[in-house]
Structures are given as C-alpha cells and as structure tokens.
C-alpha cells in the first residue's frame, strides 16, 4: 500500500493540519512505510472476533445529575489567544 503526495494533502485537509509543501513527499513515504507494517494484520482471520475498545470492557459510569464543576470561566478565558466580552474571537465566519 503506498500513498501519494496528493493523498497526503487530502488527509492533512481532513485533519486541518498544515504541512509544508516540501515535506509532503517525505510524509507520503513515511505513511506508506507504516501502512506496509499494517498489512501484516490482514494475514490473520478475525471474522468471529469481537473488537476490543477498552482494556476493562467497562460500561460508562453514571453519576447523579448534580452540578459539581466550579465556574472557572475567567480563568479559562485568561489563557485564550484572543477574547472579548467573555467570547473567544476567531476570524469572521459569516459575511
């Protein structure tokens, strides 16, 4: 299995991840190497095997519906790159 530079650009777009144009080929090569490693998995028949998502196979724990969090809004806003009037600022989305 090998990926092209074009594939890499598509995946990077899905991940909203900027990669330098001059590095695209090397990512394509590295990812193809990783995919070669992964083809080993297809040697094994796993048809009847239940997938394992979690080591303990535990169900999500429920808790009483009570407010336990403190209000840390100011603290959390203070570490944001850009804020105004209690809002996070981003470039204009709607013209």
């Amino acid at each position, binding site marked *: 299995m090998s990926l092209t530079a074009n594939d890499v650009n598509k995946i990077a777009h899905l991940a909203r991840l900027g*990669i330098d144009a001059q590095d695209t080929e090397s990512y394509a090569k590295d990812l193809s190497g990783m995919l070669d490693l992964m083809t080993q998995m297809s040697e094994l028949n796993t048809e009847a*095997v239940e997938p394992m998502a979690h*080591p*303990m196979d535990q169900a999500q724990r429920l808790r009483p519906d009570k407010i336990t969090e403190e209000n840390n809004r100011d603290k959390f806003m203070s570490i944001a790159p850009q804020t105004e009037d209690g809002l*996070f600022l*981003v470039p204009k989305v709607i013209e």
Partner: protein
Amino acid sequence: MHTKSLSELSHGLQTGEFSSVELTQAFIKRINQHQDLNAYITVTEELALQNAKAADARIANKKADALTGIPVAQKDIFCTLDVKTTCGSRMLDNFSAPYNATVIEKFNQAGAVMLGKLNMDEFAMGSSNETSYYGAVKNPWNTNKVPGGSSGGSGVAVAARLAAYATGTDTGGSIRQPAALCGITGLKPTYGRVSRYGMIAYASSLDQGGPMTHSAEDAAIVLQTMAGFDPKDSTSVDLPVPDYSVNLNQPLKGLKIGLPKEFFSADLNAAMATKLSEAIDEYRKLGAEIKEVSMPNLKLAIPAYYVIAPAECSANLSRFDGVRFGHRCENPVDLTDLYTRSRGEGFGKEVKRRILMGTYALSTGYYDAYYLKAQKIRRLISDDFKRALTEVDVIMGPVTPTPAFGIGEKMSDPVEMYLSDIYTIAINLAGLPALSIPAGFINDMPIGLQVIGNYFTEAHLLNIAHQYQQVTDWHKQTPKGFE
C-alpha cells in the same frame, strides 16, 4: 542526601537530620550543575522552596506522610496549576494550566515538593525523547545515547539524581523503556489504576501514569500516593487500593514465571538474551519455577498499536485548534486558515505523522480495514495474555531489543523506531500492569527486565522486583560523574 532511598529521606526529615529546604536546595544545585542533560523543561525553584517550607512546618507538627518534604519532578504531561505545562510541544509553549491533574493534587496533599517539569517526547509520541520541541535529552550513562522515551526526562532525572523520584506515563512503553535504558525502576500500573484527569491525552484507551524510581521499594511508596479511584476520570476503576509495601518481603518460593517463546526467539539480541537468562537464574535461586508460555498473536501488536494509538491521538489532538488555548498563528485569514496554520506551526513532525496516520485509518472506506481490524487483534493479544496468566503467575521478558541507541541514529526511519517498542506495547493493548527493573549492563549501558502481571497485581509485581533487588545491586549503580 541525593543517594538515599525514599524511606531514608523521610526518616532523615523526621529526625531533623536535614530539612526539606536543605534537601530541595541540594537537588536544585544538582539540576543547575547538570543542565546539559536537558532533563527539565521548567524548574520551579521558587515554588519548590515554598513547598519545602510548608513541608518542614508539617513535619514539625508531626503530620508528615511518607512523601512529605521529598522533592519530586513531574513529567510535563501533568497539568500543574499556574505552572507552564508544555507536553514537550510548541503548541503548549505558552500554556499555563488552569487546574491541577489529580495526580498532582495527590502529591500536593502528601506534602511533596515539586522541583519542576520534565522533558518528554512531544505529546508522549516517541521512543527516544528526540521529538521534544525543547530538544533531545541525554542519557547520563553516555551522553551520546538516547534516554528512551517518551518519559526520557523522568528516566534521566532519577538516574542522574536530579530528583528523588519522578512520574512518567506509559502508552506503549513510555515508563518502562526509559527506565530500562536509564537503569532505574519504572512501573506501568493496570489501566484505570491511576487517574488520567489532567494528564494530557495521547491515546486514551492506553495511557497510564506511574512511578519512576531507584527501587521497587520506592515505587511502592510513590504508587501508594498516585493510585486510586477518581470520579473525574471516566475510565478510573473503583477498586480499593491495597498496601503496596506490606508484602515486599514475601518469599518467592513456588512463584511460577512464564517466558513467552515469542520474546525469546532467535530475533533477540544475543547479549540481551544472556543478561536476561542471568536475571531469570536469580529468580530460580529464589525458588521460582520457570515455564515456557506461548502468545502467538504478539507479533501483530506493533501494527495494531500503530493503528489504534494514532487513531485515538488524531481525535484527542483535535482540541488544539488555536481558539481556546495554546499556539495561534499570526493573522489568520479565515477559520480554516486559523486551524490549519496554528496546528501546522504548533505540532512537530512525529505528531503530524501520527495525526495523519490516525485520520487516514478512521476515514471513510478505511475504518474496517484498519481501526476495526486492529481492535479485533487487540482482543486476540489480550486473550493470549489472559490464557498465559492462568498457567503462570507472572510473565518475564526484555523491555527493549538493545541497550540505548545513539542520538540521531533512528530518526530518519519512523518504522524502525516503532519496532523498538516490540516488547512493551502489547501490555498496553491488554491494559495489564508491568514493570522494568535494572538487570545488568551491556557495553556499560543499562538494560531492563520486564515483569508483567495480571490486572491489579501491582503489589505482587513490586514484591517480585524487590526480592530481586535484595540479591542484586544493579539498581544501586550510578552513572559516572553523577555520584
């Protein structure tokens, strides 16, 4: 002072032989002397001295715990309130955590003194501590060699005695591998035993924090503080925490040790095989019975892990969007540009590789072939361990294929780097506890012996490690120049 065990340090503090302030100053002096190792990202000297003064007052009031007043260094993956928390990444170079991780809270309650935050592979992705934005960490046994990763700074801080003990986290070997390569003791607890709250996530179904120390005896004391149910962590396991120190001296007569034939195949480096068989002979002398076990699916652990971990990482790291915290690019033209450039500038090459791999594995049309397939193989590997652990009490094997390799040696080929995780990652897939203990030297570089146990048998693993450390002195060796 810096060569003492944790119980000796605690005794010294409580009998007034030295104060916590003196002890803290002694470690800070050593940190400053050995800055070239690059073990610390941030040294919190002022905070440490404040903590030490408070600890001295607590000791004077006879309210000391086992760790009160003893200096610890934290892997920079644990969020520390109002202290820079970088996870080894440019993305978080400007990030001061707005809350404490549960593990940090527990150390604070115990009266521990935090010396600072330790270097690590970026977002814990790496096996050599070379992917850190803050530069490679050097192994004190030979400064041209890597310390292992991702908890490389932790391994070095303990080995070079720049802290009395340290914390690490282990997603695919990141506690055990640096412990082995730096000649110290490292324990990865059972998944769910130590809270992940405030521990910056890499692969959430695999990540687990644990102690990195000089000895199993010290690790038992540190784990006692770290372990326990945490309602803030949805995968924390609600089971009582046993006393990890009380059974350290149990004799090992009749202990059944399994050696997976897949670990001891012809692929295993000959010098490593010799050292491990010497270690296992020590266990024989202690009365253990040795048995071969088989885990036929072990060889698929690497491909399964390098699908599952990147898939989880691509989801976890989507939170770094340049909007709420962390790095933001200059003058974004629109929202997509803001996300794309902030992430592109904030993440290093290895992190990008894994985000790309994970995004691909989870994308439409590939999910079944990669992610689902890997989860099925995860089940088979876990079943292999479960089966083997009905035949034997513990499994032993290598931690790494070789002693520490050279800085720069494996950076050009990521797959070759991934293959060095062969002996550790299957344990994370199964969620089992395992530890690494020093088991000798090859060409003057330390190597580790891995001991793997059943779920929640940390106390037994520590007992098994401690008994070995009563009849060997590998764990007492100190690199030259760091005595």
